[in-house]
């Protein structure tokens, strides 16, 4: 029972261990880099410089932060539920890391290629909601509890549009294997045929990662960090690690499923380094977009968030899936896909506009309209 890793034949168990080690090491470094990059980019959006003083141009800032966090005392409030409180970070952290298993960096650079890769990913990544609720409940803090419950509501609500939007793309590829999906986009990426699904995926991914404008569970100005208000030191850093790992994973999934991954536009015949550059550029673009949105938009409110998911995004993904099915079954031209996407996007924007520009009640009439509602 031997496997091949970097050209060496090794025992399956050693292979597995080595792969886990590589992932964890790679992930930690990536997260540190992401945090540094985010701070620099956000700073530039705000006409600041960002970290400058730790290392050349502040590059060691994340390392310094990590060292500080590791060195901090691991506090637990006296009234907190010990098991829930202390296990919660792992429950948040481990599922996110499990998501790494299926990432298709390149055709042959991956941990494992699973035939049901996409399904595996959505199944595993949704477990971390449990961790959020555990953290919120176990902290014995009302801010944390509100935050935890918000996280649960938000996580479950946006899991559906996220999964369905991915499913819409997977339908076209006819497979849940991520590599097959990437190869299927060698000529035209799915963002062209499925702009609506891509938009919904992006929005839902923002919500899944608790990123602005959907950082409601951790909203600094409302619930002061939400579920992790009581955490400190290494446990707190695990939440943080999980958040940025999720960002990285979702960016790669988005790049693979909608932007053609390593295959588009240069095809498979190019060298693997070029392919890697392609993947990184696409994922990096998505990550930049996430940072850009973070710098630009306010936070939604929990009721607006929920109704946006259930009343707008979810029905539209169903429409997209039905149209996709019709195209596949009845062999309609591909243009129908594009048309649906564009019309759907237009409808989505129109609905959003209408929702916020509803006429306001005059103040004297507030009481009456409240009663009428």
């Amino acid at each position: 029972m031997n496997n091949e890793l970097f050209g060496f034949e090794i025992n399956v168990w050693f292979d597995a261990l080595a792969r886990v080690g590589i992932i964890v090491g790679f992930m930690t470094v990536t997260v540190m880099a992401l945090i540094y990059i985010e701070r620099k980019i956000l700073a530039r959006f705000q006409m600041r410089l960002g970290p400058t003083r730790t290392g050349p141009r502040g590059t060691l800032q994340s390392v310094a932060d990590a060292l500080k966090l590791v060195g901090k005392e691991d506090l637990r409030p006296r009234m907190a539920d010990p098991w829930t409180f202390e296990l919660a970070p792992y429950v948040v952290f481990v599922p996110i890391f499990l998501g790494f298993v299926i990432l298709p960096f390149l055709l042959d650079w991956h941990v494992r290629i699973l035939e049901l890769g996409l399904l595996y990913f959505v199944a595993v990544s949704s477990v971390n909601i449990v961790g959020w609720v555990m953290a919120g409940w176990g902290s014995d803090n009302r801010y944390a509890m509100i935050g935890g419950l918000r996280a649960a509501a938000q996580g479950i609500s946006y899991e559906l549009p996220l999964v369905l939007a991915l499913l819409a793309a997977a339908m076209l590829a006819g497979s849940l294997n991520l590599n097959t999906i990437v190869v299927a986009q060698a000529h035209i990426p799915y963002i062209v045929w499925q702009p609506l699904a891509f938009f919904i995926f992006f929005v839902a991914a923002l919500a899944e990662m608790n990123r602005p404008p959907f950082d409601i569970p951790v909203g600094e100005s409302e619930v002061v960090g939400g579920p992790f208000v009581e955490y400190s030191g290494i446990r707190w850093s695990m939440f943080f690690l999980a958040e940025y790992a999720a960002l990285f994973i979702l960016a790669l999934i988005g790049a693979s499923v909608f932007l053609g991954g390593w295959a588009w536009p240069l095809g498979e015949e190019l060298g693997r380094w070029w392919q890697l550059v392609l993947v990184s550029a696409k994922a990096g673009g998505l990550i930049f977009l996430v940072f850009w949105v973070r710098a630009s938009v306010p936070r939604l409110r929990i009721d607006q968030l929920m109704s946006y998911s259930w009343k707008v995004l979810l029905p539209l993904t169903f429409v997209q899936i039905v149209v996709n099915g019709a195209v596949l079954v009845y062999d309609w031209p591909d243009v129908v896909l594009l048309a649906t996407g564009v019309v759907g996007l237009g409808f989505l924007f129109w609905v959003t506009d209408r929702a916020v520009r509803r006429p306001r009640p005059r103040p004297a009439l507030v009481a009456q309209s409240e009663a009428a509602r």
Partner: protein
Amino acid sequence: MAMPRLPDQEFETQDIMINMGPQHPSTHGVFRMVLTVDGEVVRDVVPYVGYMHRGAEKLCETMDYRQGIGYMDRTEYLANFNAELSYVMAVEQLMDIQVPERAQWIRMILCELNRISSHFMFTGAFGTDVGVFGTAFTYSFIQREIVQDLFEEITGDRLMYAYFRPGGLAWEVTDNFVERVREVLTQVKQGLKDVDGLMTANEIFIARTRGVGTISTEDAIDYGMSGPALRASGVDLDIRKTEPYLYYDQVDFDVPVGEHGDVYDRFLLRVEEIRQSIRIVEQCLERLRPGPILPERMPRMLRTPPGEVYIRTEAPRGEYGIYLVSKGGNRPYRLKIRSAGLSNLQALKEMTVGQYVADAVVILGSIDIVLCEVDR
């Protein structure tokens, strides 16, 4: 905005109390409110103030008129010039001092610039309250810094100016004052464009603020609200227009008035007030002539005859009043500071109950309180 409640027999729900503050990122200082929430909906608010009470009124009663000026800065640290103005105007009124024209124009310029910087503080802090990650804050603070640099060049201090004196000004402004103010105005206009572009039209921002925290005209008057918080409810009450002081009757400006009395109106109104302030400053600069900045016969010791006066001016947060009672001598017998924030804060409960927890923060931000002014 109320969430439909489930029938009681199906679910047993329990209201929980959340203690927001005194240390909380969005209570704008040491303010505490105890929220009783039913899920996400606020059922009751009990505000607690007083953490910053330093007895400024009592302190001023023990100090002569010149020494009191510095304490006015410390009661209203975002609109110091406006606070100083009320105080020195009260002393002037009692002493019957004629203030030279140039000093009045300079006061007006500085007060309006101070209004601009104070409103920028609002846009920044409010942006953070609704959840823009720091961008609104830095945009606004860059503008504040620009204005404060100017103030530092003139008065020597960035925050506690202590520049107005009964009778005029402490010293002459810098030689390049007019050019510098114009420069500042150009930059402020650009900054206003940034803040405006970032927030005003943003759908999420609108969704978070429109129709939130409404207060009706009658309630707003009844609670004694003032300033932009009152005008957003449709009351055309700006002391600069209704009881003009300085030379506000000689310049041309509009008082923006809201219609719905909600948070969005309050925000728009303040942004518009920045524009109007720029207009006022530009007119003042044209009218500014060389001249003395203190009256010719100025007593060396400030002594007031017995009497009392209630001076009110339109500070950025509303009516900043000074009730000064003198029984002769060189110090106030009683000095009462009418703080706009205290009265505006009273209406918090009226605005917040029935809204969401997240809205409570936004509503508090929209009142734009300065706790030092509330507690004095």
